[in-house]
């Protein structure tokens, strides 16, 4: 009932771990709590977090593409 059909899952279950990467990248604040280097005038703190928007979407898309879904 949980939607993780084992037949499907066996081929790409490692893909699910990609979804954890944004949590690591964003929840460990010392990674990015700096002003330098700046990008287009944005301190690191801001452009780093904004950059995670497309990265996170891309990772999710990779998981989506890698797993078959029937619903």
């Amino acid at each position, binding site marked *: *009932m*949980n*939607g993780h059909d084992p037949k499907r899952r066996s081929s790409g279950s490692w893909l*699910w771990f990609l*979804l*954890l990467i*944004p*949590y690591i990248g*964003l*929840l*460990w*604040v*010392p990674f990015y*709590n*700096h*002003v330098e280097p*700046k990008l*287009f*005038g*944005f*301190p690191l*703190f*801001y452009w780093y*977090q*904004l950059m*995670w*928007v*497309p990265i*996170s*979407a891309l*990772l*999710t*898309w990779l*998981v*989506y593409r890698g797993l078959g*879904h029937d*619903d």
Partner: protein
Amino acid sequence: MTEIDPVPLVVCAFFFALVTVMGFVAARWRVPKTLASIDEWGLGGRQFGTWITWFLVGGDFYTAYTVIAVPALVYAVGAYGFFALPYTIIVYPFVFAVMPILWKVAAERGYATSADVVHGTYNYRPLELAVAVTGVIATMPYIALQLIGMAAVIKALGLTGEIPLIIAFVILALYTYSSGLRAPALIAFVKDIMIYIVVIAAVVIMPAKLGGYGAIFDAADAAFKAKGSGGIILPGSQFFPYASLALGSALAAFMYPHTLTGIFASRSGDTIRKNAILLPAYTLLLGLIALLGYMGIAAGLKVGSNNDIVPALFKSQFPNWFAGFAYAAIGIGALVPAAVMSIGAANLFTRNFWKAYVNPNIDHAGEAQVAKITSLIVKVGALLVILFLPTQFALDLQLLGGLWIMQTLPALIFGLFFNWFRAPALLAGWAAGFLIGTWMAWTDGLKPLHTLTLGPTSVTLYVGLVALAINIVVAVLVNLVVPAPRVATRPAQ
């Protein structure tokens, strides 16, 4: 703001009239045979595809209050207010992994609310009631906050008194009553496009006027240094508060009735997965909206209430007709979530209180009628809260609401993945998280952060996350200690 500039007022009135017509016409959108069932009135027929869901959830999750309050917090304290950005990024991997499974259970068995799912999984009325009551009381102050967003716009237009707010809300209540979820779904298209236009214009025009982003950040940095508090990066003491607020808010976000209504109204699990990939576009927008707070500092604006910073910025930097357009975007941005929230709360009341306790034999049309009337009552309640109680009361309740709704996560989500927990243990966990969390927040003076001290070390975390940890620990302990009944409480899966 003593004199009224007619241009922004006319622009605002035009767009408000437009969405009012759309709200009523929505009843005939994707014509159902009848609106007289919860599935039709309260979930739009469970047929919203990728794009409609994108607009609806985007319009419903990124609320008018967000547009007002996030820049206000950034304006006041700086980097700390930016936690809304990591929050609205990490929420989507969670949505992607969990919500399609929840959708599937709900669609297969006709569930319309979180408490329906809990009842179906555990067949235990007390847990269902706990989840339903939590959903309703967490949503009420959230609706009230939308009114605060709307009130900020009305104030910026130069209108005084409470009549404009009451009129706007009564109209909203009427078309929600007649069209159900179709109304906010249709209006969300207008609202979201308007917000995108405003924000893109703001992030292009304002830096050009204010000397570029480098100058904006420098001005903010200088202002925080002069003030002696806040800053454009975080002090070490705020690392854990920042990260735990982001994580806790992300876990709470899709437990609310209004966000779950968007999930249940989707056509398929795939619709939700695609949206988990596409919805971050709004997060990018939110990050840019947050920076309006710094633009307010760079523009040298001083406001009486921090919540006035965004309207004041639009007024000072945009031509007056475009400021009117921007106000309209925010005002309409309050209507969509307020409508969906009242529908979500009404669905809960109808399914998990009225049908469960008052009239178990109610038919589909009867359910829709109860839900419609409840949606009216819920909105009137929120309006009365704003008109007669101090604003701070709504803000405090909203904070507690986030803590409360998070306590429904174990009951709603754990059962989708494993069968180990029994309902009484989950209820004990819910009660512990709810009561101890509320007590902690209360004794901390209704602040979102709680400091845990263990010997010489102490760590400050979002109180909702602490309460969730208590909830889970209690649920595990009770489940281990209390022997399983001989007859399983779980129905056949």
